[in-house]
């Protein structure tokens, strides 16, 4: 763990990667008629958390939990209604998009949908080059080639268009774009949720090796608790815009303190659990159809 910063120290490296303090994000619902009262909804309510530098931090929640809103705040794509969001010690509050240059250098995102996050009318080369061009990096071609190579894409990939790649390859393109400007923080927003298990395993391995090699802070936003457990060392659980529970992954998974966290964990289907149930079904059938608790066979005995 990082040693706590002494108050006089202003060294950049001692700030947490991301620090969120008392953040609220309130949205105004669209009015159903011009005469209707405006109603609001709190996508985030009083959320505070600190993401240590170099950690792999999981943000877990179901749809409507506010995890996407939180991600957008951290990435400077949205502004908190109140509270502060600090990235690398710099407060994002009140900064306009044009003033976020420092954030663009230090933080990049890998999005969920590998098709939707790549402009269908741009060649892969230009997609990956985009953050580099903005930062005025001189040898863009070399940097693009390096990034494509690191994510395991063939060298000629740059000349092609996104739709010419499979889902897994597209996600590699998305990762190449994110790591090309050498950020310190990588935000993965449901980055493997749209992929099947085989590709998911490959992409997870790739993300982990990149995070390790480059000593990145990896912020992993997901609804999938099993994936978060595999990837992250710390985790925060969101429900209805509130931070329910946070802590080191293993202790949270072993002894969840909150009822909702326990429910979430219990709902994850695992092979061991499913096979045990299948075994029970099979033996119930083998034992005959008279067994009282065998709801499976209730229909056929009637």
């Amino acid at each position, binding site marked *: 763990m990082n040693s706590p910063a002494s108050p006089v120290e202003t060294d950049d490296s001692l700030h947490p990667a991301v620090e969120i303090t008392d953040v609220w994000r309130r949205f105004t619902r669209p009015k159903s008629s011009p005469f209707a009262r405006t109603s609001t909804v709190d996508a985030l309510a009083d959320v505070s958390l600190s993401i240590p530098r170099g950690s792999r931090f999981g943000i877990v929640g179901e749809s409507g939990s506010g995890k996407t809103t939180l991600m957008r705040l951290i990435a400077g794509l949205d502004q908190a209604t109140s509270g502060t969001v600090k990235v690398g010690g710099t407060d994002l509050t009140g900064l306009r998009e044009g003033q976020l240059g420092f954030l663009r250098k230090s933080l990049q995102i890998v999005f969920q949908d590998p098709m939707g996050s*790549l402009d269908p009318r*741009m060649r892969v080369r230009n997609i990956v080059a*985009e*953050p580099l061009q903005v930062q005025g990096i001189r040898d863009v071609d070399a940097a693009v080639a390096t990034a494509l190579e690191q994510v395991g894409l063939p060298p000629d990939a740059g000349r092609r268009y996104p*739709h010419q790649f*499979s889902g897994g390859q597209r996600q590699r393109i998305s990762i190449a774009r994110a790591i090309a400007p050498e950020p310190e923080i990588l935000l993965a927003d449901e980055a493997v949720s749209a992929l099947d298990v085989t590709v998911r395993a490959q992409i997870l391995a790739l993300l982990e090796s990149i995070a390790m090699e480059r000593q990145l802070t990896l912020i992993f936003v997901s609804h999938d608790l099993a994936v978060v457990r595999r990837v992250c060392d710390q985790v925060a659980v969101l429900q209805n815009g509130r931070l329910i529970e946070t802590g080191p992954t293993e202790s949270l998974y072993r002894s969840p303190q909150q009822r909702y966290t326990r429910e979430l964990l219990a709902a994850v289907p695992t092979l061991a659990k499913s096979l045990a149930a299948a075994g029970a079904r099979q033996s119930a059938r083998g034992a005959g159809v008279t067994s009282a608790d065998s709801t499976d066979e209730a229909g056929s005995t009637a």
Partner: protein
Amino acid sequence: MTDRKIERGQRLSPTLLIGGTIVAAIVLVAVVSFFWTPWSTIHTDVNYPAAGPGTAGHFLGTDTRGRDIASLLMAGSRTTLYVGILAVGIAAVIGTPLGILAGMVRRGPAELLMRVTDLMLAFPALLLALVFATIWGSSLTTAMTAIGVASIPSFIRVVRSGTVVVMTTDYVQAARVAGRRRFAIAARHVLPNVMGLVIVQVSVSYAIAILAEAALSYLGLGAGPTTASWGRMLYENSAALTYAPVILIWPGLAIALAVLGFNLLGDGLRDRLDPRLAGR
């Protein structure tokens, strides 16, 4: 998921092929008319007014003043193209950026812009042409400027709705995270991705402009007496409707064909540029 992906051939769609052929033919006729028409468009064959097709060397006959219909049709295609380019050019060049702006900035001034757009949509284009003609005098250019200005709102609306969709995509979010400024996002991501909509709107507006020119010229507010125009041909020969209706059929057919051609071309181009259909 990829199971269902079906390869698409690279063949030209019939829509694009037919539309392209019609438009190319009109352009060709217009170009040729600069150098050659069967007769001069101002030559009046006083002996043969309102003659049927084939009379005295007039392939399609003559109009009520004895002018060669085929020659007038050829020269009229120039007017048709000119009015289309002027009117649609004004509408597209002004309407597209405003539409992108309204779609990207969705507050304050953009909101005002949309209300003004709504107002203008309710204002008849022909009435605007009348107003313009009163102020600047009736001429083809005035009339088409009016039609162009009147078509701006529909461009704004169409482009804005497309822009709103593009702005919600992850690739625009990614561009923001990359640090792209608004203007660069508009030029690099939004414009190419709403281009399909712009093309369709261009073809629709082109058809409207051709029809409007015909209507305005028919009312005497468009092309002057010395300019050959399909609309003007209808206007000048309207009296012949009772005794030589065939004179009116030719320009009518020409207008219908041009409108059809531009609509088909627009539809075909849009499909061609749609990334979801581009399985190449």
